[in-house]
Protein backbone atom coordinates (compact mmCIF):
# COMPACT_ATOMS: atom_id res chain seq x y z
CA UNK A 1 0.00 0.00 0.00
CA UNK A 2 1.40 3.35 -0.98
CA UNK A 3 1.66 6.03 1.66
CA UNK A 4 2.85 9.61 1.88
CA UNK A 5 4.26 8.97 5.33
CA UNK A 6 7.99 8.44 5.76
CA UNK A 7 9.00 5.35 7.77
CA UNK A 8 10.27 7.66 10.55
CA UNK A 9 6.95 9.56 10.67
CA UNK A 10 5.06 6.26 10.85
CA UNK A 11 7.15 4.79 13.64
CA UNK A 12 6.91 7.96 15.72
CA UNK A 13 3.12 7.58 15.67
CA UNK A 14 2.47 11.26 16.32
CA UNK A 15 0.05 12.02 13.49
CA UNK A 16 -0.39 15.32 11.72
CA UNK A 17 0.02 17.46 14.83
CA UNK A 18 3.60 16.20 15.36
CA UNK A 19 3.00 16.06 19.10
CA UNK A 20 0.87 12.96 19.63
CA UNK A 21 -1.66 12.99 22.44
CA UNK A 22 0.50 15.03 24.83
CA UNK A 23 -1.65 18.17 24.72
CA UNK A 24 -4.90 16.21 25.14
CA UNK A 25 -3.48 14.19 28.01
CA UNK A 26 -2.05 17.19 29.92
CA UNK A 27 -5.38 19.02 29.57
CA UNK A 28 -7.13 16.00 31.16
CA UNK A 29 -4.56 15.50 33.93
CA UNK A 30 -4.77 19.17 34.95
CA UNK A 31 -8.59 19.00 34.76
CA UNK A 32 -8.71 16.02 37.13
CA UNK A 33 -6.29 17.72 39.55
CA UNK A 34 -8.43 20.87 39.46
CA UNK A 35 -11.59 19.08 40.68
CA UNK A 36 -10.47 18.83 44.35
CA UNK A 37 -8.34 22.00 44.13
CA UNK A 38 -11.29 24.09 42.83
CA UNK A 39 -13.53 22.78 45.63
CA UNK A 40 -10.86 23.77 48.18
CA UNK A 41 -10.47 27.17 46.45
CA UNK A 42 -14.23 27.82 46.61
CA UNK A 43 -14.29 26.80 50.30
CA UNK A 44 -11.37 29.18 50.97
CA UNK A 45 -12.68 32.22 49.10
CA UNK A 46 -16.18 31.88 50.58
CA UNK A 47 -14.68 31.47 54.05
CA UNK A 48 -12.60 34.63 53.68
CA UNK A 49 -15.36 36.90 52.32
CA UNK A 50 -16.15 39.65 54.80
CA UNK A 51 -13.22 38.83 57.10
CA UNK A 52 -10.12 40.96 57.71
CA UNK A 53 -6.74 40.92 56.01
CA UNK A 54 -5.35 39.39 59.22
CA UNK A 55 -7.64 36.36 58.82
CA UNK A 56 -6.72 35.99 55.14
CA UNK A 57 -3.00 36.35 55.93
CA UNK A 58 -3.08 33.82 58.76
CA UNK A 59 -5.14 31.32 56.77
CA UNK A 60 -2.97 31.50 53.63
CA UNK A 61 0.26 31.54 55.67
CA UNK A 62 -0.54 28.04 56.96
CA UNK A 63 1.79 25.61 55.10
CA UNK A 64 -1.03 23.33 53.87
CA UNK A 65 -3.10 26.25 52.60
CA UNK A 66 -0.05 27.87 50.96
CA UNK A 67 0.71 24.57 49.20
CA UNK A 68 -2.91 24.08 48.09
CA UNK A 69 -3.15 27.67 46.78
CA UNK A 70 0.18 27.16 44.99
CA UNK A 71 -1.16 23.93 43.48
CA UNK A 72 -4.39 25.58 42.42
CA UNK A 73 -2.46 28.44 40.77
CA UNK A 74 -0.04 26.10 38.93
CA UNK A 75 -2.62 23.61 37.67
CA UNK A 76 -5.24 26.23 36.73
CA UNK A 77 -2.72 28.35 34.79
CA UNK A 78 -1.26 25.29 33.05
CA UNK A 79 -4.82 24.29 32.13
CA UNK A 80 -5.48 27.90 31.03
CA UNK A 81 -2.48 27.85 28.70
CA UNK A 82 -3.53 24.54 27.12
CA UNK A 83 -7.11 25.78 26.67
CA UNK A 84 -6.18 29.15 25.18
CA UNK A 85 -3.75 27.38 22.84
CA UNK A 86 -6.67 25.38 21.41
CA UNK A 87 -8.68 28.58 20.90
CA UNK A 88 -5.78 30.12 18.94
CA UNK A 89 -5.28 26.89 16.96
CA UNK A 90 -8.98 26.88 16.03
CA UNK A 91 -9.42 30.49 14.92
CA UNK A 92 -6.01 31.88 13.88
CA UNK A 93 -4.68 30.45 10.64
CA UNK A 94 -1.81 32.83 9.84
CA UNK A 95 1.55 31.51 11.02
CA UNK A 96 2.85 34.91 12.17
CA UNK A 97 -0.26 35.87 14.14
CA UNK A 98 -0.48 32.37 15.61
CA UNK A 99 3.12 32.36 16.87
CA UNK A 100 2.74 35.90 18.20
CA UNK A 101 -0.48 35.07 20.10
CA UNK A 102 0.85 31.77 21.48
CA UNK A 103 3.98 33.52 22.77
CA UNK A 104 1.88 36.35 24.24
CA UNK A 105 -0.41 33.84 25.99
CA UNK A 106 2.54 31.80 27.25
CA UNK A 107 4.34 34.86 28.68
CA UNK A 108 1.10 36.23 30.20
CA UNK A 109 0.31 32.92 31.88
CA UNK A 110 3.87 32.59 33.25
CA UNK A 111 3.81 36.22 34.49
CA UNK A 112 0.42 35.71 36.19
CA UNK A 113 1.55 32.44 37.78
CA UNK A 114 4.87 33.90 38.95
CA UNK A 115 3.03 36.86 40.50
CA UNK A 116 0.63 34.52 42.33
CA UNK A 117 3.43 32.27 43.59
CA UNK A 118 5.52 35.25 44.73
CA UNK A 119 2.53 36.63 46.65
CA UNK A 120 1.88 33.21 48.25
CA UNK A 121 5.52 32.91 49.38
CA UNK A 122 5.46 36.51 50.65
CA UNK A 123 2.26 35.82 52.64
CA UNK A 124 3.79 32.67 54.13
CA UNK A 125 6.96 34.57 55.08
CA UNK A 126 5.16 37.54 56.68
Amino acid sequence: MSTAQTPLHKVQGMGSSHSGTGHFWHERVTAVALIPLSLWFAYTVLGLIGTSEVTALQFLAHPWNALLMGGFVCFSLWHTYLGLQVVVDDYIHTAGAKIFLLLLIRFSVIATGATCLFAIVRIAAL
Partner: protein
Amino acid sequence: MADNPQTPLATTRPLSPHMTVYRWPVTMMASITHRVTGVGLAMGAVVLAWWLVSISNGPEGWQSFHAIADTPIGLIVLFGLTWSLIYHFLNGIRHLAWDLGYGFDKQVAERNSVIVFALSIIAALAVFALTWTGHGGYLQ
Protein backbone atom coordinates in the same frame (compact mmCIF):
# COMPACT_ATOMS: atom_id res chain seq x y z
CA MET B 1 -7.02 17.21 -13.49
CA ALA B 2 -9.10 18.40 -16.42
CA ASP B 3 -12.36 16.89 -15.17
CA ASN B 4 -12.11 17.60 -11.48
CA PRO B 5 -15.68 16.92 -10.31
CA GLN B 6 -15.31 19.19 -7.29
CA THR B 7 -14.96 22.41 -9.24
CA PRO B 8 -18.55 22.82 -10.54
CA LEU B 9 -20.07 21.31 -7.39
CA ALA B 10 -18.17 23.53 -4.98
CA THR B 11 -20.03 26.64 -6.05
CA THR B 12 -23.47 25.15 -5.38
CA ARG B 13 -22.78 23.00 -2.34
CA PRO B 14 -23.84 24.41 1.05
CA LEU B 15 -20.96 25.26 3.35
CA SER B 16 -20.97 24.05 6.93
CA PRO B 17 -21.55 25.12 9.64
CA HIS B 18 -23.88 28.05 9.11
CA MET B 19 -24.16 29.31 12.68
CA THR B 20 -26.59 32.04 11.65
CA VAL B 21 -29.18 29.78 9.99
CA TYR B 22 -29.00 26.69 12.19
CA ARG B 23 -31.30 26.34 15.16
CA TRP B 24 -28.83 26.27 18.04
CA PRO B 25 -28.98 22.90 19.82
CA VAL B 26 -28.48 23.10 23.58
CA THR B 27 -25.41 20.83 23.32
CA MET B 28 -23.80 23.37 20.96
CA MET B 29 -24.65 26.17 23.39
CA ALA B 30 -23.06 24.15 26.21
CA SER B 31 -19.90 23.59 24.18
CA ILE B 32 -19.54 27.26 23.18
CA THR B 33 -20.25 28.35 26.76
CA HIS B 34 -17.51 26.02 28.00
CA ARG B 35 -15.00 27.83 25.78
CA VAL B 36 -16.29 31.31 26.61
CA THR B 37 -16.20 30.64 30.37
CA GLY B 38 -12.70 29.18 29.96
CA VAL B 39 -11.44 32.37 28.30
CA GLY B 40 -13.26 34.39 30.98
CA LEU B 41 -11.54 32.40 33.72
CA ALA B 42 -8.16 33.16 32.08
CA MET B 43 -8.97 36.82 32.82
CA GLY B 44 -10.08 35.68 36.28
CA ALA B 45 -6.56 34.35 36.91
CA VAL B 46 -5.36 37.97 36.73
CA VAL B 47 -7.96 38.92 39.37
CA LEU B 48 -6.69 36.00 41.51
CA ALA B 49 -3.11 37.31 41.18
CA TRP B 50 -4.28 40.81 42.15
CA TRP B 51 -6.19 39.39 45.16
CA LEU B 52 -3.16 37.41 46.40
CA VAL B 53 -0.80 40.37 45.93
CA SER B 54 -3.24 42.66 47.76
CA ILE B 55 -3.36 40.24 50.71
CA SER B 56 0.44 40.08 50.77
CA ASN B 57 0.53 43.91 50.92
CA GLY B 58 -1.19 43.99 54.31
CA PRO B 59 -4.11 46.24 55.38
CA GLU B 60 -3.65 48.86 52.62
CA GLY B 61 -3.53 46.17 49.95
CA TRP B 62 -6.67 44.47 51.32
CA GLN B 63 -8.52 47.81 51.33
CA SER B 64 -7.34 48.72 47.82
CA PHE B 65 -8.70 45.40 46.52
CA HIS B 66 -12.05 45.84 48.24
CA ALA B 67 -12.34 49.48 47.17
CA ILE B 68 -12.67 48.17 43.59
CA ALA B 69 -14.14 44.68 44.15
CA ASP B 70 -17.03 45.98 46.29
CA THR B 71 -18.31 48.41 43.61
CA PRO B 72 -21.34 47.36 41.50
CA ILE B 73 -19.10 46.72 38.47
CA GLY B 74 -16.69 44.75 40.66
CA LEU B 75 -19.53 42.60 41.98
CA ILE B 76 -20.85 41.98 38.46
CA VAL B 77 -17.38 40.83 37.39
CA LEU B 78 -17.08 38.61 40.49
CA PHE B 79 -20.52 37.12 39.83
CA GLY B 80 -19.49 36.41 36.23
CA LEU B 81 -16.29 34.72 37.43
CA THR B 82 -18.19 32.72 40.07
CA TRP B 83 -20.70 31.46 37.52
CA SER B 84 -17.92 30.80 34.96
CA LEU B 85 -15.92 28.72 37.45
CA ILE B 86 -18.98 26.68 38.47
CA TYR B 87 -20.08 26.18 34.86
CA HIS B 88 -16.59 25.24 33.62
CA PHE B 89 -16.21 22.89 36.64
CA LEU B 90 -19.54 21.08 36.02
CA ASN B 91 -19.20 20.94 32.23
CA GLY B 92 -15.55 19.89 32.64
CA ILE B 93 -16.76 16.85 34.56
CA ARG B 94 -19.04 16.11 31.57
CA HIS B 95 -15.98 16.29 29.30
CA LEU B 96 -14.11 13.83 31.52
CA ALA B 97 -17.15 11.52 31.48
CA TRP B 98 -17.14 11.68 27.66
CA ASP B 99 -13.44 10.72 27.72
CA LEU B 100 -14.47 7.60 29.65
CA GLY B 101 -17.18 6.90 27.05
CA TYR B 102 -20.26 8.01 29.00
CA GLY B 103 -22.95 10.53 28.08
CA PHE B 104 -22.83 10.49 24.27
CA ASP B 105 -26.46 9.41 23.81
CA LYS B 106 -28.36 12.26 22.15
CA GLN B 107 -31.11 12.56 24.76
CA VAL B 108 -28.64 12.18 27.64
CA ALA B 109 -26.29 14.83 26.18
CA GLU B 110 -29.18 17.29 25.74
CA ARG B 111 -30.53 16.59 29.23
CA ASN B 112 -27.06 16.98 30.83
CA SER B 113 -26.50 20.28 28.98
CA VAL B 114 -29.70 21.67 30.51
CA ILE B 115 -28.75 20.30 33.94
CA VAL B 116 -25.30 21.94 33.80
CA PHE B 117 -26.78 25.30 32.73
CA ALA B 118 -29.44 25.19 35.46
CA LEU B 119 -27.15 23.92 38.23
CA SER B 120 -24.43 26.47 37.47
CA ILE B 121 -26.87 29.41 37.60
CA ILE B 122 -28.54 28.12 40.79
CA ALA B 123 -25.16 27.49 42.47
CA ALA B 124 -23.79 30.93 41.49
CA LEU B 125 -26.92 32.62 42.84
CA ALA B 126 -26.68 30.47 45.99
CA VAL B 127 -23.06 31.55 46.55
CA PHE B 128 -24.04 35.23 46.35
CA ALA B 129 -27.18 34.69 48.46
CA LEU B 130 -25.19 32.90 51.17
CA THR B 131 -22.58 35.67 51.16
CA TRP B 132 -25.14 38.48 51.35
CA THR B 133 -26.95 36.78 54.23
CA GLY B 134 -23.67 36.63 56.18
CA HIS B 135 -22.91 32.94 55.72
CA GLY B 136 -19.46 33.61 54.22
CA GLY B 137 -16.37 34.42 56.24
CA TYR B 138 -16.51 31.23 58.34
CA LEU B 139 -12.69 31.05 58.44
CA GLN B 140 -12.64 33.96 60.92
